[in-house]
């Protein structure tokens, strides 16, 4: 890659298989490689079940890998132990998709946000701890009064703000945002996305943004990777991906997104690339291109030969046999 920026996260041929009994394996992530540079937002998109969440979590060492390598600022994430692991966990944080399931209903907001501070000994005195919690609450648009409440008293949007405050409490430098807005209403989504973009600028954060909403990813991400059935199909700078998608799957995916404008929509409808059938099962996948069964350009070769990511233009990688 031509950029001179320092890589924060380097993922090389990462594999994550889940054994299902003795005979079957679920290949959630299969040979995925990408690099995230300092200060950027890397968007990881795909349909449900394509392995994007598993990929995000494996990058943070929450799952043991099956193969390949993840390096965070040069260190092998899965080899970290003891103090180094603790430091890594302070440096990287995760924001979850479901703001209802990811916050403990028996803890007050200040305990939820303060837990990280306690674990990493970031507050010397109770006053300092309380002060930091209030500061975080204000950062995410809540206030002091909310600190002693329980999460059930908050709306979905407010809960997601608490989840973000918890992640920011330990002053991380790298965040994995796992569909942080897909459970929220349209008007609230915009609030949260704007807030995340502000934090990135002010706190110099690097994001891995996992989502299925391609339009939202376009807003927040500078580079985007498209996943299908555990494999990265295409990586490109955001503008370029949307203007010139090269992979047939990306093309179909983009054409399926409705645009809120009746006259544009009528035109687009005629050009829509219909995608027949559904995503095949990730259990015991056959060799060859994983998209072959739904691809309109699929040839015999696609069913045998597995395409690898290759650079077609600077920064634009595609895994497809079609030239």
């Amino acid at each position, binding site marked *: 890659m031509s950029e001179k920026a320092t890589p924060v996260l380097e993922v090389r041929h990462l594999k994550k298989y889940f054994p299902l009994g003795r005979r079957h394996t679920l290949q959630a992530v299969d040979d995925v490689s990408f690099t995230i540079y300092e200060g950027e937002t890397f968007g990881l998109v795909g349909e449900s079940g394509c392995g994007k969440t598993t990929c995000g979590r494996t990058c943070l060492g929450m799952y043991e890998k099956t193969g390949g390598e993840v390096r965070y600022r040069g260190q092998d994430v899965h080899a970290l132990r003891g103090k180094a692991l603790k430091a890594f966990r302070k440096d990287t944080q995760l924001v979850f998709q479901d703001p209802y399931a990811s916050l403990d209903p028996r803890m007050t907001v200040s305990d939820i946000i303060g837990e990280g501070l306690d674990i990493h000994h970031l507050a010397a005195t109770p006053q300092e701890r309380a002060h930091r919690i209030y500061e975080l609450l204000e950062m995410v648009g809540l206030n002091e009064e909310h600190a002693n409440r329980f999460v059930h008293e908050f709306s979905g949007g407010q809960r997601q703000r608490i989840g973000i405050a918890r992640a920011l409490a330990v002053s991380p430098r790298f965040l994995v945002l796992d569909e942080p807005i897909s459970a929220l209403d349209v008007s*609230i989504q915009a609030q949260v996305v704007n807030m995340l973009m502000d934090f990135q600028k002010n706190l110099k954060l690097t994001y891995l943004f996992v989502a299925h909403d391609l339009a939202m990813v376009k*807003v927040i991400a500078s580079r985007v990777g498209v996943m299908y059935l555990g494999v990265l199909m295409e990586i490109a700078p955001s503008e370029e991906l949307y203007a010139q998608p090269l992979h047939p799957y990306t093309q179909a995916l983009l054409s399926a997104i409705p645009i809120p404008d009746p006259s*544009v929509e009528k035109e687009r409808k005629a050009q829509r690339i219909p995608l027949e059938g559904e995503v095949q099962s990730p259990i015991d996948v056959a060799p060859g291109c994983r998209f072959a069964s739904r691809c309109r350009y699929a040839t015999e070769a696609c069913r045998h030969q597995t395409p690898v990511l290759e650079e077609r233009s600077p920064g634009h990688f595609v895994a497809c046999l079609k030239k």
Partner: protein
Amino acid sequence: MEQTSDLLSVQNLRVSYRTYAGEVQAVRGVSFTVRKGETIALVGESGCGKSVTAKSIMHLIKTPPGEFKEGSQILFNGEDVLGFEGRRLTQYRGGDCAIVFQDALAALNPTMRVGQQIVENILHHSNLSKKEAKAQAVELLRMVGIPQPERRVRQYPHEFSGGMRQRVMIAIAFACKPRLLIADEPTTALDVTIQAQILNLIHSLQKQNGSSVILITHDLGVVADLADRILVMYAGQIVERGQSEDVFHHPRHPYTVALLKAVPRLDQESGKRLYSIQGTPPDLIHPPEGCPFASRCPYCMEICTREKPDVTQFENAHEAQCWLYALRETPEDAPFARRESAEEGEAHV
């Protein structure tokens, strides 16, 4: 609008729920009509009362805790739906009028084979024998695009994927060729590629049967190419209504304007901040006296917080409930329509 072509007419619908915290006024005076063969979109965010409106039309509101207020009226082909009882109600639900829910897994019975669930509906509403009904169930599954329907009728809902389950729901809904189909967020839980398939399916079945459709959603993109008319709901009331093109191209109510701007579009530049609506919708236990959107509206005036605005009519049966127009003698463009072009660069801030 000719009275004869109205299939459904909802007049001054008001629904409340009794809770420990007080009376939640979920729907506060909603009126609209649905013509034969027409597709209407009911758009709004969660908690705005769109699903309660749908359930009221299906007569699915449990009373108590729910309650229809004085003066609420729902007419289906001239008949009073809220007065239906016994056989007529069974006939109406599923026969005249069918509903597709958002969460197909929760809506289907997990202990029954899907074929049986379709057969059940057919037997309820026709004189077919069991054998004929079973054959029809297979045909229905084929019609909604489920491969190997002969094998699939004997499977349980958990053996189907999300998109396939939604197809089963649609098969059940269309089993008796309803004249009105209510689709309550039919694609919210699905992926975009599957979403396009399901919407196409609903559309083609509607064409075949000449049914009317009420499409309920929070996603403005979904309704853009399907809906003939759009009703925008906020805090239990309809704040704007009109032909699809009019609402998208000339939104009148500040809420509609904000909602359209808040949705990220693929044809927009990346990296820019999104337009966001500050604050949250009002609490419907104590709904505000004036305009419900007043607290979040960038054009809020003093009168907005005090009094409910009147409906202003624009051309082409386009209506909005907003003081920006109601105060003027002849309706004209709201300030945002004119300011928009001047502040193009700032519009996203």
